[in-house]
């Protein structure tokens, strides 16, 4: 073991870690830039200095209302919802070792969504009660999918197919609820079917932010465990990972994140699905990708909302934009998966 060879090994590690840190920093900067743009742009464009003054507490005619009351809640919601969808999506994909096992494909996001729709549109509820209902509903659906996929021998493919079926059923039921509630006008329907940042309330923010901070931290801390779980159950057991406990914690955290986010904005299409794979590629494989996935989610949501609001003559809700942006990448991923996996 000469020093020369030791250095190669260590250098390899250091190089990868450095790339991780650099890529993640770029993501943080991008997210910050988009957040600022969300505060600057609008019917009236305020310069950055004005924005900062308003945030600092100064009261400026017109600007305070526009920035503080209108744009800030929207921006913060988009940021944290994006973080939530991104981290939760990445977690599920890693747990099930398949990028297609994303909560918005296998019905878990819809499962949370339908509870939120029911509470808000039919029961007329609002606030933390809705979010709790969404969590319970999401967990319930996740459990059902898991139990059903165990019949006749568990396989990831079965779980995904069953998830797609459950998703179709729940989407139908959501359409029915929307119809029933006489909210069949397009903006509301769109919100609940593909997600929107319109009309988000400041009151929903504290709950959202706390949940996102708590459960994201938990998932990030358990990142190392998740990376061992990725290898195989046998390997994880022999390396000392307490599989059942870790899985339970991760699924719970993921569902909490998704449920709270969905209760506020509806299910924003594709964010959960795309964030994980993009993050892995960007930051380097084999390295922790949870936090980067959250950042990518935030970037997707904030960026798409900006595009949806200002790029065209019609205002599009964020879900439609992420849908369009996500589609080609979705197809590309499937093609690539099939080519490699077979």
């Amino acid at each position, binding site marked *: 073991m000469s020093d020369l060879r030791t250095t190669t090994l260590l250098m390899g590690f250091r190089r990868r870690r450095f790339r991780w840190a650099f890529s993640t920093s770029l993501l943080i900067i991008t997210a910050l830039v988009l957040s600022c743009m969300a505060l600057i742009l609008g019917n009236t464009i305020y310069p950055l200095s004005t924005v900062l003054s308003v945030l600092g507490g100064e009261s400026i005619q017109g600007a305070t209302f526009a920035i503080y009351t209108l744009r800030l809640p929207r921006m913060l919601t988009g940021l944290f919802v994006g973080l939530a969808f991104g981290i939760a999506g990445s977690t599920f994909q890693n747990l099930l070792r398949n990028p297609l096992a994303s909560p918005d494909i296998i019905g878990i996001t819809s499962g949370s969504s339908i509870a939120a729709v029911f509470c808000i549109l039919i029961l007329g509820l609002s606030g933390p009660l809705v979010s709790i209902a969404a969590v319970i509903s999401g967990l319930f659906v996740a459990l059902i999918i898991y139990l059903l996929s165990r019949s*006749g021998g568990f396989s990831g493919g079965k779980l995904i197919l*069953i998830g797609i079926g459950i998703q*179709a059923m729940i989407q139908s039921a959501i359409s029915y609820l929307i119809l029933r509630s006489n909210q069949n006008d397009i903006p509301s329907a769109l919100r609940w079917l593909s997600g929107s940042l319109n009309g988000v309330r400041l009151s929903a923010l504290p709950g959202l932010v706390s949940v996102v901070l708590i459960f994201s931290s938990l998932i990030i801390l358990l990142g190392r465990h998740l990376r061992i779980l990725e290898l195989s159950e046998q390997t994880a057991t022999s390396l000392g990972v307490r599989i059942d406990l870790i899985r339970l914690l991760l699924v719970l955290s993921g569902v909490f994140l998704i449920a709270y986010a969905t209760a506020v904005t509806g299910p924003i299409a594709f964010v959960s699905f795309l964030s994980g794979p993009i993050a892995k590629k960007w930051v380097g494989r084999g390295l922790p990708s949870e936090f980067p996935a959250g950042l990518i989610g935030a970037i997707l949501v904030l960026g798409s909302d900006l595009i949806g609001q200002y790029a*065209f003559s019609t205002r599009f809700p964020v879900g439609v934009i992420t849908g*369009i942006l*996500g589609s080609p990448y979705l*197809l590309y991923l499937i093609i690539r998966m099939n080519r490699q996996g077979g």
Partner: protein
Amino acid sequence: MKKINPLLLIVLSIIGLSISILASLAFGARHIGFLEVIQSLVYNQGETLNQIVVHERIPRTLFGIVAGASLGISGALMQAITRNPIADPSILGVNTGASLFVVAGIAFFNIGRPIEYIGLALLGSSIVALFVFGISSLGRSGSTPIKLALAGAATSAALSSIISAIVLPRTDSMTNFRFWQVGSISGATWEGMLTVLPFLLIGLLIGLFSSSTLDALALGDELAIGLGVRTGIVRLLSTGAGVILCGATTAIAGPIGFVGLMVPHSVRLLLGPSMKRLIPMSAVFGAILLLFADVIGRLIGSPSELESGIVTAFIGAPILILIAMKAKVKSL
């Protein structure tokens, strides 16, 4: 899985079809008794309000039969050709593809006649069918059910977003925003239905014509060729028929899913896998199913109505789940 006496099944289906036709004419925003329905049909009266309502519902009912039959046969054909128990025009994303092309045609090229709708829909469904089947065939294991379903679901979701994006700014000019995302037989006109009818007949004929070959194909390509079957041509014809059937239906009704999945499986359970029986019975069962779905949609959605496509999804998805649950791990 006891096989029913085919004759008995035919009698039962005719009864079932009659009931569903009556129900389709009777129920809705205004409920009319069965007897009155029969009277207004037989005596062709058109004076009382009830009788007028019945007559107004006739095109819709007839279209339900035509569309349901088309979708049923389409599903049977696709499952036979891909040897895939979950092949269905909606799962493969073919419906969404047809829908997208029609929507694009309306938005950008101002088409308006049913024949134009159908032309674009056929184009769209063919392209998407090729695409979905293509990407699911990549890789060592070829086109497995799970890969096909995933490719279809992904493509469907992707195209659906594009449809939303096109329709949203044009909600005043597009008949109904939801229409192109979830299908319904409510918009059927005589003209539309008559335009679809020839396609249905062509599809039905091709299906019947290829049925014995398709039975041989079910044994595997090599065996079929060994038996002297011209697999290439039959595959092409049948796939074409399947795509035409669902494309034409989608052009008029929007994308209605799961009929092509549920119906062939139910028929297979009752009558066995022989295509000679499967094709015509899938037509009948498909008609019954779609009419019933439509009636349910009207009943539970009243005073408005829930699109048939939503009802079929709700009934059909459990079938998908059951199939997935029962499947042996290897075959997925």
